[in-house]
């Protein structure tokens, strides 16, 4: 038994099956990310004025990652076009670049994550708030950690500005590391301590959820592309048309993943 229109186009729809499938799937993906973006809007609109964290992400790095993904989008198309022209070698070349881009994107992202895990905010009992680094650069500390470790003070390197203060011309992510001189804060004066992890605020909650979900998509897409680049390419010998279609499908998915980032970048880094 053979399923019709796996490769051939159906007359009335002028599509092959997998193309219909991927568009439907992307429709559901739009709803998935759409729901998360809507949640972002709702949480942000609901936050008391002036409290939404801003300028805590590194814009140049985010912009660089955006470019990486755009490049990969181009090479995906080129690889597909190469197959259409019957050139498997060129296809391999372009897809290799795509894979490299995916890898760099994820690597850069993980460094960004790590940066956040060692960056802290302190809420003092007198209402003062500051962001900065804890001496020794520990990961994932929270108020509970202070209790568990029975510390009586921490050494803190505050950032020059807190994100709730009006943005000054030169303040921003780049200024993070300049830091003031280290200060000592008695634990008794700390109402709350949190690294920039999801639990820090709804901002970081949605930031990590969205970017991690997106990262998973990048990872999944790269797996598929990698498979078709390596063992999956055997199909080229027996059924080139079908193989080309698979590349087209994986490419459509990849474009979608890139498109999501194109929205994520301004929403999370710039606004």
């Amino acid at each position, binding site marked *: 038994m053979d399923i019709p229109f796996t490769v051939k186009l159906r007359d009335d729809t002028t599509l092959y*099956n997998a193309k*219909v499938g991927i568009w439907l799937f992307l429709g*559901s*993906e739009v*709803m998935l990310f759409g729901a*998360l973006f809507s949640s972002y809007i709702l*949480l942000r609109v609901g936050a008391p004025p002036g409290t939404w964290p801003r300028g805590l992400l590194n814009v140049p790095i985010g912009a660089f990652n955006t470019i990486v993904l755009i490049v990969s989008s181009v090479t995906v198309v080129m690889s597909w076009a190469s197959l259409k022209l019957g050139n498997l070698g060129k296809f391999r070349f372009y897809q290799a670049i795509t894979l490299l881009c995916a890898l760099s994107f994820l690597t850069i992202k993980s460094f960004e994550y790590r940066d956040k895990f060692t960056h802290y905010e302190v809420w003092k009992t007198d209402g003062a708030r500051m962001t900065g680094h804890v001496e020794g650069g520990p990961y994932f500390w929270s108020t509970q950690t202070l209790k568990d470790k029975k510390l009586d003070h921490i050494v803190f390197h505050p950032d020059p500005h807190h994100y709730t203060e009006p943005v000054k011309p030169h303040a921003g992510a780049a200024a993070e590391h300049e830091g003031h001189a280290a200060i000592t804060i008695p634990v008794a004066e700390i109402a709350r301590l949190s690294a920039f992890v999801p639990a820090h605020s709804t901002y970081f909650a949605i930031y990590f959820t969205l970017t991690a979900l997106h990262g998973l998509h990048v990872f999944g897409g790269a797996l598929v592309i990698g498979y078709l680049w390596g063992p999956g390419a055997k199909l080229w010998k027996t059924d080139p048309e079908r193989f080309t279609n698979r590349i087209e499908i994986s490419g459509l998915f990849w474009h979608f993943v890139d498109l999501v980032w194109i929205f994520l970048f301004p929403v999370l880094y710039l606004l």
Partner: protein
Amino acid sequence: MQPTAIETQPHAAHEAHHEELGFWRKYIFSTDHKVIGIQYGLTGLLFLLFGFCLMLIMRWQIAYPGKPIPIVGELLLKVLGDEMANGGVMQPDLYNAFGAMHGTIMVFLAIVPIAFAAFGNFVVPLQIGAPDMAFPRVNMASYQAYFMGGVVMFFSFFIPGGAARSGWTSYSPLATYADMGHHPNGQTFWILGMVLLITSSLLGAVNFIATIIQLRAKGMTWMRLPFFVWAQFVTAFLLLLAFPPLEAAAVMQLMDNVAGTSFFLPTGLVVSGNAVPISGGGSPLLWQHLFWFLGHPEVYVLILPAMGIVCEIIANNTRKPIWGYKSLVYSVLCIGFLSFIVWAHHMYLTGMGTKIATFFQTTTMIISIPSVIILTCFFISLWGGSIRFTVPMLFALAFLPMFGIGGLTGLPLGFNFTDLHLHDTYYVIAHFHYVVAPGTIFGLFAGIYYWYPKATGRFMNEFWGKVHFWTSLIFMNAIFQPMFAQGMAGLSRRMYDGGVTYAGVDDPALGLVGVPQIFIDMNRHISWAAWCLGLAQIPFILNFFLSMKNGRKVASDNPWESTTLEWQTPTPPPHGNFDKPLEVYRGPYEYSVPGKSKDFTPQNELEKR
């Protein structure tokens, strides 16, 4: 490219392969849509029984609060321990867990898998004249995801702290704090199970839509599709577009539960007298919006396939065309669209604002119109027919008034001023159970009795079928009818003691009026009716299994003398379905066409001139 080599080679290989399919490939890891449909059906029926049993146990606690449960009390104590069933008495946490899991299992593990996945898989490709689904392996994966989701949900009963206990709606913050003593707890399992089930539904939905768009046989135009296929088509779209937001919500709730975020947790939250150490800033309403954005389309997922089944059976057993086929199609499309903009009628009491409430009240009233059109078409179709009262037809006929009651009692819930009183009472329970229990489940029974001969080559026993029907009809009504009265008297749902706390609180000084005792007493009648309904399913279960061996054999491939394509195949249909290429020449319901020698004309029958 060498098309010939490509075309013939796999084919020859396939033929050789065909014989070798062992037990595992044929029944467990099958890619055949009919086998997958049956897998879904059997698993779904098991969960239907399981979810029903949970309720039968809960009904004891509602009718006789605080008394040890007979028969199963000991067992619960042994398996779940003191904390859950001390002395064989259902404890509050167990009641909550059973209630939440009854809802979850019934909706996501029983009705959707049976109505959409089982019937859709088995019938849709046959009815459109396709050899299989568009993506057979995805189809298998979707069943497996469903199965694993079921395992996770089932397993969660036995973990420390027991299954999820915050209702099938899992409202935050309750869902995050209901079981603080255990991590991971039942709620975590619930979320993971849901993610698997959602994945399964999404894969299924993509597959169904692609199949219906791409694999219709030659001549099977859109307006020649049986209404059942239309219903499944719209259902698939609902699943495809409504489920992802719940998936997003589930991920966020998972974050709240395990990563300490505050997506759905407001600032200043106090639990059991202690301020919780969270950032706050979240919105409990957000969860409700995302949940009901799925939740409302979901009720149409539960009902549309049943309507499709009922339509096929009515046409076949009245021996005349369905009245208003086009109105049915446009109505079902309207429902599909509108069902995405009515969700907040579940949230009138949340204080989301009167303007928003008015909007959703309006859309809710509008969406009732196409539903009424569909039901009206079915009723008019009966007019003047020479009705054959077969067992499937009895269930299909009963579906009409039962769904009618369920639908009409929904209107007072759709108006926000009346909903203020009725919200979260037993009236709501009665309303939606009329839709899903004597409604959808009767539709499903009808479908099982109707297509059983195609799947097995034998009929189910007619006499026991009728016993099953009449007893079920009586007890269903005996269960749910009194609940309307209880609800209007103010009896709240989800009450561990069946509302005893609310009886006898009359205090003229404070102007308090309790729920009159007679409404509390109804609990006992309802529970007895529920247990009898359980007994009434025994004939069905026996009939279902025994008929596979002993049922009356079908005399032809088309024993009900039907027009649609699923009956124009060998019985049971082989892998690949149709033995010869087929073409469709006419609409789906050409019954009793004047001037014809027989009273039905199959869709693929060539006109002899």
